């Protein structure tokens, strides 16, 4: 990719967009990827489509919260602009932008909820959401499994996911053993 040029107003523009995206990121930053794609790839050509997809895939695979795909995109934008200094600036701009509004709001909400925890409405909200949260977790697992194993040909992946789920549910085996087993099975192309 040829070197791109980002002016200070471009960096500010990027920061402003990420501040707004943060406020819209109910369900995680991943829910705003369409908007990020529009901004970074289609509108400004700061990233190639391949770089955009790689950032998401790498963040999914690497340890740590998936939101770090945002940092990777900032890093790549900076590298495309031609220097490691710009890459560090890119990480700082995108991560601060995506984190600042949502964490501030969550902090204030959690403090308010904690101060008013005896209120009937607060108890009803926190407890009332529990069944939906349980359903959401199970759904996330199923959707993740479907993404990596979309057809019946991939049944060994489903079997592995199911086996891992049962082991975690019924035993206290350390998670790293299971992840290690998954990695070994995959390395030898058994799943």
């Amino acid at each position: 990719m040829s070197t791109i040029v980002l002016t200070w107003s471009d960096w500010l523009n990027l920061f402003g967009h990420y501040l707004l995206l943060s406020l819209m990121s109910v369900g995680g930053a991943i829910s705003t990827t369409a908007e990020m794609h529009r901004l970074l790839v289609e509108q400004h050509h700061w990233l190639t489509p391949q770089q955009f997809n790689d950032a998401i895939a790498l963040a999914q695979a690497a340890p740590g919260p998936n939101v770090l795909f945002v940092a990777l995109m900032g890093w790549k934008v900076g590298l495309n602009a031609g220097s490691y200094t710009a890459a560090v600036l890119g990480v700082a701009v995108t991560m601060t932008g995506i984190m600042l509004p949502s964490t501030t709001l969550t902090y204030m909400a959690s403090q308010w909820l904690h101060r008013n925890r005896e209120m009937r409405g607060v108890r009803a909200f926190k407890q009332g959401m529990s069944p939906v949260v349980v359903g959401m977790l199970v759904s996330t697992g199923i959707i993740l499994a479907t993404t990596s194993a979309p057809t019946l040909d991939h049944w060994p992946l489903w079997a592995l996911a199911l086996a891992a789920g049962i082991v975690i549910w019924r035993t206290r085996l350390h998670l790293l053993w299971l992840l290690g087993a998954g990695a070994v099975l995959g390395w030898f192309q058994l799943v």
Partner: protein
Amino acid sequence: MIPEDNPLDNRRRPQSLADLFFSFTILALQGFGGVLAVVQRELVERKRWLTPEEFTEELAVAQVMPGPNVVNLSLVIGARYFGMPGAAAALAGMLAVPLLLIIALALVHAHFADHAGVAGALRGMAAVSAGMIAATGVKLAGSLTRHPLPLALGLGVAVVAVLLLVWLRLPLLYVLGGLGTLCCVLTYRRLQP
């Protein structure tokens, strides 16, 4: 000596801001393809900083607010013990080291991206992560036995949520807003004023 199953002894807490920071760093580094299942395993089952009920309740807060649920959850847990500094320590723990690591990975990514073994290993770990997160949901379903709503209703709502999200692929926002609100109203009516 206090017996192991003494409920008073069951409640533990982070000792310091450094404890929070390092605990969350270690959690984050174990989360390949999602950290939530690791948080539940470590903080509820091993460290016992939270009961399953508290975990589910704090997760509800973390989920309905904008931002990544696991990042919000770490912040809420940190704030619960040490206020603003605790929130910052937990957040930094969740993000700082994984951020450096992922940039290091991005730098070498080009060299191993096409390696069949590496791609296979990532695929295997992703499948384990999928099982992990679903199992977390199944385990937390156990805490619905102590929910104000009857167990059958609570489990029914959870199953309907799965159908809406997996089968109909409805956006999470609608399910939290619709089914969640309905469930909150029903719970409200069962609680003592």
